[in-house]
């Protein structure tokens, strides 16, 4: 699994220039409603053919391993591989510029007009639905984990929910308590 220069060697399109990189990630960012990763795959692998599927999967594994949003990490890792720090910069600026402008406009409109008449109702319903989206995300992530390793997964999931959601512990404290236990259980489960 060569990852260093696959896109140039294995019959896919030639490596994109800095400007193409910028445009590619800008296209991902404005298409990416409700989760950017499916769009990243569609655009990087299927449409522009800059990455092989296996290459995309292994780069994504890196991005999921590191903290921060996966799509942000993906733009940095991919841009860096093609053009060093300038590539990383081109990709991240492409990814962030349009969404930041759009969200600032929407946020300003909300802060100015959000309490007026039916807009109040619109934002209330939107927030309720957004809550539902995370309920679904939590369930989609929890169920396979609980099926695979119920004895270790359930206590940690419950503890994380109680400490962060009910007792409102600061996140560093929650991580300091639960991460070592999670790692220990994962290490023992492996052996």
């Amino acid at each position, binding site marked *: 699994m060569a990852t260093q220069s696959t896109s140039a060697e294995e019959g896919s399109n030639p490596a994109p220039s800095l400007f193409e990189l910028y445009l590619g990630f800008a296209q991902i960012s404005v298409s990416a409603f409700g989760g950017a990763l499916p769009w990243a795959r569609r655009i990087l692998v299927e449409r522009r053919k800059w990455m092989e599927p296996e290459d995309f999967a292994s780069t994504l594994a890196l991005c999921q391993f590191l903290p921060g949003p996966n799509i942000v990490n993906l733009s940095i890792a991919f841009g860096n591989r093609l053009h060093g720090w300038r590539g990383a910069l081109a990709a991240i600026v492409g990814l962030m510029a349009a969404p930041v402008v759009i969200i600032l406009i929407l946020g300003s409109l909300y802060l100015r007009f959000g309490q007026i008449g039916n807009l109040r109702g619109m934002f209330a319903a939107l927030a309720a639905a957004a809550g539902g989206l995370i309920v679904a995300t939590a369930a989609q992530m929890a169920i396979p984990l609980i099926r695979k390793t119920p004895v270790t997964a359930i206590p940690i999931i419950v503890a994380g929910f109680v400490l962060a959601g009910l007792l409102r512990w600061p996140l560093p404290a*929650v991580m300091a308590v639960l991460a070592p236990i999670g790692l220990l*259980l994962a290490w023992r489960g492996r052996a």
Partner: protein
Amino acid sequence: MKGGVLTTLAFQCSMLALLAFGGGVNTVVPELQRQAVDVHHWMDARTFSDLFAIAQASPGPNMLIVCLVGLKAAGLTGALVATLAACVPTCLLTFVVSGFWDRIRNSPWRPVVQGGVAPVAVGLISASAFLISKSADHAPLLILITLAAAAFCYFTKRNPLWALGAAALLGLTGVVS
């Protein structure tokens, strides 16, 4: 005073981004809400849930909720400071690690780390779901909207934007407030 808010925003957003393991921004929503609502009183819990919804309904990384928190706390400067603070440290880390990823990706501790943080992340995301829904659902119909949106996203592979759009239209008719 404003300088104090910007420093706090910068510190909190960088720290949160660096602690966002295994599930992106949803794992740090409980802490972001705690800081913005309980600790610094930049907004009430309902406004936080509204801003979260706007970030979900907008294109781009959901992490941009920090941009809106910054906007509410300290205006446009606050928004830019929060966004940069959330991006720069994790981007630098990725930049450095992606250079030698091939060497560590087959090491035996990698699945251990991933397996170890996964249930912690799920617990934190469950807490996010609870906190956002709790402060959003202040009427019975809103609880139904949350449940319907959850069921739609869980049982279908359709874009979650459909659920958000349907909810927004329903809200515009004035039946929920």
